[in-house]
């Protein structure tokens, strides 16, 4: 065993109470960091998943306002014409070509054509205003997964089948197999059979969405084979806005990412992340101060011994390393123990605290990277906080120390 390690271990072992204190401090610090990170990451992942469960990453549609900008003669942009596009003209021109172009764009994983518009759903005396969405049964699945959100029946929209949300089903008293009539503003209507009922965890969607086949929607909305929107899934969820910009520029359509549509959620997540980062920074600082002060006291207590070590041929560098190693050991042992406790705490909360549906209210995300990161931070903190005491110890003058006993 290297001499430095031998002496460092012995100093730690013999300074029982002090060692226990800094180890406890480091352990608690690392546990807090692990638990907090796991919790925040877990919550954010769940929130984002929830948001994206019923939403495509990027939605392309024809701009509903056309703004033509003439080349400015005097450097000033002139808005030449602003007009509302009539309902009928909302369809995307030459959409099969545009769809192919979207699918070929880098970062896009899948894309599906949809036709959307407003309609009335009626059953007997009851009637509700709904958002009619026509889906391509073959490709919609690859962009938004709804089949795992079905609470009754199944996700199936062939022929005159319709899939509705739980709230609409309750409002209209509908069950799987029941009939409902859909009428559009274009004064077209048809009777559909409820094939499935979904719950996406969003009241508005559960209340307003009525999903039918693309073909039926095209007929009801009088689009004559046209579509109103192209919905796309991207590889990097948080790169959706960038991809949306690329798609918008390439197709001339208005492209909205889920990020733009959920800016409040995103800024909430950001605020959460930065306050968590701030808490973790303060925890690291507190742990560092703890290690530094305990090692600092230990250097003062061990002045005489340091003097003896020097008088018997121990070099300045070796003395310094003896104390640096103590900091490193505290950091490593503390991060291992803290990692275990943090993981245990996370697992406990994830399993113990659940909502009435059995979903965890504390979804936690524990990753090997988190543990590695926390260990690296703890090791660096241990070394950095041992730096000053180590330097002080190395500089002690043996003659003075020995003289004063």
């Amino acid at each position, binding site marked *: 065993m290297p001499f430095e390690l031998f002496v460092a271990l*012995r100093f730690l072992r013999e300074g029982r109470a002090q060692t226990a204190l800094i180890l406890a401090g480091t352990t608690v610090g690392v546990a807090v960091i692990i638990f907090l990170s796991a919790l925040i990451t877990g919550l954010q992942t769940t929130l984002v998943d929830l948001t994206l469960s019923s939403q495509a990453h990027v939605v392309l549609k024809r701009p509903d306002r056309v703004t033509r900008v003439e080349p400015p003669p005097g450097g000033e942009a002139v808005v030449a014409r602003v007009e509302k596009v009539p309902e009928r003209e909302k369809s995307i021109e030459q959409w099969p070509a545009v769809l192919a172009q979207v699918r070929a764009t880098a970062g896009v994983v899948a894309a599906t054509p949809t036709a959307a518009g407003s309609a009335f759903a009626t059953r007997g005396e009851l009637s509700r205003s709904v958002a009619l969405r026509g889906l391509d049964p073959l490709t919609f699945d690859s962009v938004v997964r709804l089949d795992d959100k079905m609470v009754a029946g199944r996700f199936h929209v062939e022929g005159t089948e319709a899939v509705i949300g739980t709230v609409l089903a309750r409002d209209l008293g509908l069950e799987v197999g029941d009939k409902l009539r859909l009428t559009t503003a274009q004064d077209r209507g048809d009777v559909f059979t409820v094939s499935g009922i979904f719950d996406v965890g969003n009241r508005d969607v559960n209340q307003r969405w009525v999903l039918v086949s693309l073909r039926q929607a095209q007929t009801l909305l009088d689009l004559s084979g046209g579509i109103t929107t192209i919905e796309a899934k991207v590889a990097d969820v948080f790169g959706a806005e960038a991809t949306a910009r690329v798609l918008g520029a390439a197709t001339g359509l208005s492209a909205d990412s889920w990020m733009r549509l959920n800016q409040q959620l995103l800024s909430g997540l950001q605020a959460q992340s930065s306050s968590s980062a701030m808490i973790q920074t303060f925890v690291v600082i507190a742990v560092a101060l703890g290690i530094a002060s305990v090692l600092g006291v230990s250097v003062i207590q061990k002045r005489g011994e340091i003097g003896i070590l*020097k008088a018997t*041929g121990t070099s*300045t*560098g070796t003395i310094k390393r003896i104390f640096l190693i103590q900091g490193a050991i505290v950091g490593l042992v503390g991060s291992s123990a803290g990692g275990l406790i943090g993981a245990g705490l996370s697992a406990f909360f994830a399993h113990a605290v659940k909502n009435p549906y059995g979903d965890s209210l504390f979804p936690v995300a524990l990753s090997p990277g988190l543990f590695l990161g926390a260990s690296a931070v703890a090791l660096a903190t241990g070394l950095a906080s041992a730096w000053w005491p180590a330097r002080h110890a190395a500089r002690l003058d043996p*003659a003075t120390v020995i003289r004063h006993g």
Partner: protein
Amino acid sequence: MAEPAAAAAAPAGPVLRLEGLVKDYGGGEARTRALHGVDLAVGRGEFTALIGPSGSGKSTLLNLIGLLDRPTAGRVVLDGQDTGLLDDDGLTRCRGRAVGFVFQFHHLLPEFSALENVMLPMMAARGRQTPDMAECAGALLGQVGLGELLHRRANLLSGGQQQRVAVARALAMAPRVVLADEPTGNLDTRSADALFALLRQVNVRAGVTFLVVTHDPRLAARCDRIVELVDGRVVSDRPNRREGS
């Protein structure tokens, strides 16, 4: 193992030579001169007592010889090596190799066993622990009469026992010179006599050179040579007829 090169086989000339040693403490107004030009040569295997009133500079002189401190002026030549030419790490290495210390307040590391305390200088020099070190340290502790207490923690030993461990530690690196600053100062008369006898025995058997600071005239009388320091100057340096041996 602890035995240095036999005195007879060693090159001629003193093992330790001091030339015009001056030591000042403090600076400016507060400056005090602890040593005013000390010249001294100590031969191989000599057992010298350093006596003098309190504050006369004995500890200062020992610290300079032991390379714990640097002189303001003058030279310390240890085993033919001018130590003024060494950097700090060089001094540390030379100190570990050539000098053994026994201090008044035994100064062992309390959290280490007797054996480990004796091994410390060896580990410091080699950078790690090796099995032969324990063997060598055990033999040294046997020589100072502590063969039974190898694994007892230093702070659980009596004062006399601790000082014996310190002697064994001083011998660990087979040094040219052992410097002892009032080694019996904290011991009762019986322990002091026993320790002194031990130092003398090591000196005679192994030919190690000793420079021992003492206040006790009885002990000084048992040395080969007596050097007296007053106000930082050597005022007398005389051989002493050994009694007993």
